């Protein structure tokens, strides 16, 4: 695949409209279901990791240069462009914490009566971790199903790995 181009702003790819079209969340959910049904959970995890390490590579590069402040800048800009998101981005001493009070994806899928892929919320961990690792960072997710806490901090070998049971099943 081609190398994504580098950008200088917090978001790697920008649009002319300020906020995305929420119906695309249905396609994200449908994409996960297609891969899961055809190839299984391990391949779906590969998809999440691959999208994090390749499509979102410019984000990792920004994080590698700018550290945790760049992580906070990214997520503020990111959620500002996601319709219906209610997320607080906290810059703590040694981590960036996203307090997701209303997940825009889960909310939209529920409002439209869509069947949500049960492991949907795990994508946040696997994509986040794939984006964070090349920058020397690591990610953890707790909660899910519409509300969660996502954390980004410097990678530390002594840190316990993500427990996937800490991530709720979506419905």
């Amino acid at each position, binding site marked *: *695949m*081609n190398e*994504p*181009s580098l950008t200088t702003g917090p*978001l*790697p*790819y*920008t*649009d*002319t*409209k300020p*906020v*995305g*079209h*929420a*119906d*695309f*969340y*249905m*396609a*994200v*959910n*449908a*994409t996960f*279901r*297609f891969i899961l049904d*055809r*190839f299984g959970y391990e*391949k779906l995890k590969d*998809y999440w990791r*691959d*999208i994090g390490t*390749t*499509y979102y590579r410019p984000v990792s590069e920004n994080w590698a240069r700018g550290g945790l402040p760049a992580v906070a800048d990214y997520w503020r800009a*990111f959620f500002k*462009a*996601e*319709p219906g998101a209610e997320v607080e981005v906290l810059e703590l001493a040694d981590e960036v914490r996203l307090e997701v009070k209303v*997940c*825009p*994806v889960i909310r939209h899928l529920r409002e*439209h009566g869509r069947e949500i892929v049960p492991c949907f919320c795990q*994508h*946040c961990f696997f*994509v*986040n971790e794939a984006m964070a690792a090349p920058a020397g960072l690591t990610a953890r997710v707790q909660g899910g199903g519409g509300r969660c806490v996502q954390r980004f901090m410097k990678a530390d070998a002594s840190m316990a790995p993500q427990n996937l049971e800490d991530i709720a099943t979506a419905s």
Partner: protein
Amino acid sequence: MIGCYDFCGHYEWTFEWLNKLGGHELVKAYWDEAIHRDSQAHASKLIGEKGFEGMQEYWGPTLADEGAVYERTMTDDVFRIDMHECPSKGFLLRNGLDQYKDYCDHCVGWIGPLMKESGFVIDHEHNHCGQCWWEMRRKDDTTPASEAGALSGHHDVRLRPDWKSPHTDHYERATDPDDKTAFS
């Protein structure tokens, strides 16, 4: 999180990821099964039940919400779209994203099977620069595609001075992305 703001970017990236995993047939299956039958099930229902009226309803708010510059023309026998600024291809062009061989094929990829199931066929051209046109007719209507300007007047995208591109893909009475009949 994978968001919707840059959806067209990771959507296009996904085409190539699937292409590498299972080739062209897997990409086609994705457009049909994941997009047509799952994500856009509401479009299938609307057009299946209401025909041209359903097309008018679907390709109104949806394209507007995506930020498209387009015109719709509807008669008793045909539904036409002139896309002057495709928000989806435009996003890719502006951001220099070009992973998959022909992103524009995804539209026929999901709309084609939808129209087939609903009893319609498609005449269509896209110029890979963010402009395209579509004419949907009932499958038993053998009327050929309109001449430039005949249906949508000055809104016809083919009248734009920049319509011609190095390669414009052409579909005639199509319902499948492999129905390309000419390259110019």
